[in-house]
């Protein structure tokens, strides 16, 4: 296939955290970069997010967590994706993470963590590089 489909990106906010400025900013940035964006809104469970990834046939899942529950949700969501045999979906995460937690969420299956102050262009580039190597 020579025709390149636009990347499909699900941006999700797991748990009870309402801080959605970052999620909205990154959803806009992906959209402006020509990707198809599905923003789930707040209050998402791991199950809801996994279902959205499957139903939307997503290539990328972006998780935004500022509630300190990143370890729990990274593990739960990555496991749910594996259990549903969702393969080849890039999982990236943004939010407020203490530096020692970053290797831990990566061990669960998150490819990259983008902390406060990351330019959206850097995140878009990361996703594009992943796409090119796919």
């Amino acid at each position, binding site marked *: 296939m020579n025709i390149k489909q636009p990347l499909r990106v699900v941006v999700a906010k797991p*748990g*009870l*955290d*309402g*801080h*959605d*400025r970052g*999620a*909205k*900013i990154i*959803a*806009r*940035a992906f959209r402006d970069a020509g990707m198809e964006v599905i*923003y789930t*809104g*707040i*209050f998402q*469970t791991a199950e809801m997010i996994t279902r959205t990834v499957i139903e939307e046939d997503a290539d990328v899942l972006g998780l935004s967590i500022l*509630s*300190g*529950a990143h370890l*729990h*949700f990274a593990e*739960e969501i990555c496991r749910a994706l594996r259990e549903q045999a969702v393969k080849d979906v890039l999982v990236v995460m943004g939010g*407020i*993470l*203490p*530096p*020692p937690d970053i290797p831990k969420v990566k061990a669960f299956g998150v490819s990259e963590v983008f*902390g*406060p*102050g990351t*330019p*959206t*262009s850097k995140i878009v580039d990361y996703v594009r590089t992943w796409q090119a190597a796919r």
Partner: protein
Amino acid sequence: MGRDDEEREATKPTEPQSRGEASPDRDTWERTTLAASLKKLPKRKEAFTTLSGLPVDDLYTAADVNSSDPAKLIGFPGEYPFTRGVHPTMHRARPWTIRQVAGFGTAEDTNGRYKYLLAHGETGLSTDFDLPTLLGYDSDHPVGMPEIGKIGVAVDTIDDVRLLMADIPLDQVSTSYTINASAFALIGMYEVVCKEQGVAAEKITGTCQNDILKEYTAQNEYIYPPAEAVRLVVDTMEYAAKTMPRYNPVSVSGYHIRDAGATAVQELAFTLAAGHCYVTEAVKRGLSADFVAPRISFFWNIQNDFFEEICKLRASRRLWARMMRDWVGTKDPRSWMMRAHSQTSGVSLTAQQPDNNIARTAIQALAAILGGTQSLHTNSKDEAFQIPSEGAIKIAVRTQQILALENRVADVVDPLGGSYYVENLTNRLEEEAEALIRQILDRGGMVASIEDGFIQRHIADSAAAFQRDLETQKEFMVGMNIHIDPEEALPFEPFELDPGLAERQIKRTQGIRRSRAQAETTSALKEIKQAATGSDNVMPAVVRAIKAQATVGEMCDVLREVFGTYRGPIVY
């Protein structure tokens, strides 16, 4: 920058810029002295604006303070329209309250942090609750379990509040609770615990945030549909005014709106419009506006534009006074006073080079003080990546103490009053905010403007614009998008939560459910439902249920049955 100034200095004697006499007016100055200077050294950028995007001129003069009688517009402190402060003496009589928000883990954990803060000179308390508590889920509810005690303290029953306030002299230290959707429960619990400590009802002081409208637009911790949630707020206002006349049942909050991306003008408008909504809804219920308005307080976000933030506080006082006196028709001067807590801006902090946050916070704190705040929270340098460590929060408290004791900035009331720029910018912020408030009222008010996403759209657009400006380096955050240290090693004092806290909390709550007099709890919960279904104030039944050890989750569930739940429009 320094080098250019040196070069400019060196050319001075041979090329005099001044005409050797004073310009008779601004036009002359612009044509002669200014024009000559600009020819040699143009402005460093084409257009200057405030952080909110209001244009900023080269210079302000008396002609820019637009009023036939500026003194009348500015007035005196302690008098309408309170531009210069709500009290005649301001910080000369009593310094602002150092009120650091704290909350994590269980009640015992947060009580320990309170004591640490008080031991280091904090003068008021403020509490953050965890997400399950904010959203009315008990700690053993599966939805809440991963988040117990993470971003605030877990409270399920009155026993938790007893432990939270243990050994705190509630007759001497006022406490603020940052809780909204389930605020009715925490207001009741606070009242009960104060009385248990022997504080007479008329002596109970403190504040609850209880500003549900900004949850739908900024913070997103809501449960019920907006109209029903506002009804609950009015219930608490009425109840507090009757039973705890010195308690502030609502702290209308611009803080979250601003951190979500709003400009200073939007923060002003959406916050004052929310305050106006609560007062007018109370009036619709048949309460006198003067019965509820005096106990409404406010909470502002102090961002990086030093002058704009000072002017924002001044403008908020004058506009609120006018809205309450002229729009609502209140007669009691206390109804006109915009009393405020302020917090330095969380989103202005950088995770990069976090020590720089100490400087940012100190300057923002100075703006809050010069703007006339009544209490202040200074952020800790590590808040861009964790709950503050003890070392970091101590620096934040010390910052306020240095301002209070060393810098003499609190010795004159409204020291920047009369500055042409400050008065001009105060006027413009007031005008812009008023126009936006009128727009909201014209389109049906706050609830309608939340339901159709009008306010959320404003905030999302401003957040996106600022992000674009950061990425194109029109705006700067030092250490983050300029002056970056590529090999930065993070100096890091970790904050660790007790891994056993969730288990401790769940055990306590489940123990209470087993041991309480269930018939009394059930009957009180039914009474809440009855009141909510009709038009009775829910608070007397809520207090009865609290005494019967009903949980926050149980009380919120009863109201879920009556009011339903709500999901707002997704706007980005």
